[in-house]
């Protein structure tokens, strides 16, 4: 009797240990697990295909969204947005909820530019987000110490650790407990959001963090979270806290 009971306790503890967060000094960017050629492509602005979106974003930033409406640059000096991507998602007073960087851009469009929100995953919103996030390149992720964000962060952490989908995998089961191992041919990264939006060779294009999460959820055979939903923003908030103080790398490159 004693043997099985003891090993039962042991296995339960092993299961709990699997949900441990990665300690500060062990946090690694997904970049570190990539092949040298992919890393070189990310490091060289001439070779990094994501830079095309950054350049497009700079154009959009300077241009009036509709004739007569102010451009983003009318309110924000070029270069003045350094640091912003390192601290988003952030609390929005008027909405009384956390919003991610894409959500912030769309709030500026509707509130200050009299323009319609840009569709998520559309080229323009990806380009503007990449342009703004690129200005934070090299800065450590620094989530704001804003207690209004705490409930959403806690929700995000709970989602990260909860088994979901037909396979009943949790994000933590792969990214906390088994990073560095392989799922088929794919090395499992720690799952940090510091390079997004990023260029993925498999996508042949730039994609947002929410697109990446949809891919992982589809792998779990789980229903994805709609971008800008409370769950999606909560997960993004927790991912940013879990990644600090890794540097922003937008636009990163992935295979």
């Amino acid at each position: 009797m004693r043997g099985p009971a003891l090993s039962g306790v042991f296995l339960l503890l092993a299961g709990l240990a699997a949900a441990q967060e990665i300690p500060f000094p062990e946090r690694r960017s997904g970049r570190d697990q990539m092949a040298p050629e992919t890393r070189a492509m990310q490091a060289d602005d001439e070779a990094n295909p994501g830079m095309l979106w950054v350049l497009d974003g700079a154009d959009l930033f300077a241009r009036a969204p509709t004739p007569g409406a102010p451009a983003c640059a009318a309110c924000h000096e070029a270069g003045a947005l350094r640091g912003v991507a390192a601290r988003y998602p952030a609390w929005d007073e008027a909405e009384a909820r956390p919003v991610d960087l894409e959500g912030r851009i769309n709030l500026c469009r509707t509130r200050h530019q009299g323009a319609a929100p840009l569709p998520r995953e559309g080229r323009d919103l990806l380009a503007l987000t990449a342009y703004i996030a690129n200005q934070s390149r090299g800065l450590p992720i620094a989530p704001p110490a804003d207690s209004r964000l705490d409930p959403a962060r806690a929700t995000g952490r709970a989602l990260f650790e909860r088994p979901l989908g037909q396979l009943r995998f949790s994000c933590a089961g792969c990214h906390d407990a088994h990073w560095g191992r392989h799922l088929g041919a794919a090395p499992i990264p720690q799952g940090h959001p510091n390079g997004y939006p990023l260029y993925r060779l498999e996508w042949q294009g730039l994609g947002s963090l929410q697109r990446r999460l949809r891919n992982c959820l589809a792998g779990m055979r789980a229903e994805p979270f709609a971008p800008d939903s409370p769950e999606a923003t909560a997960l993004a908030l927790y991912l940013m806290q879990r990644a600090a103080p890794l540097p922003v790398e937008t636009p990163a490159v992935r295979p």
Partner: protein
Amino acid sequence: MRPHLLAILVALGQTALAPYRIEGDAIPLPLGGAAGDPARGRAIARDPRKGLCTLCHAGLGGAPEGDLGPDLAQVGARLDAGQLRLRLVDGRALNPGTLMPSYYRAEGAERVGAAWADRPILEADEIEDVIAFLLTLRPEAPR
């Protein structure tokens, strides 16, 4: 047959799992009663969209192989049919923290994608096929 009756039968067919009994660390009797076919089982086990086994296990002769679970190259010499059955049906009964999915359980899963709702990962006959294949993985047998 009237359409709503057909719908009910289809729904029943999708959700009703064959009953089984756990004895010790095994499920001694085949799900649904019949033995499986090793050739079909090999195809299921090596299909990364169906059995998913090679995503985590080496030793099944499929590529590419992940390294999240133990090498199964000689698992047929280590475990008998009943022990393999429980590990496939619901390995979480043995280790609640295991990463290995429970292949024959439809309940207890949250936020399942619409395409996968209310179904086990593999059907009873497919589980038996995979078991028949795993039993061939022995030191003396060529894969």
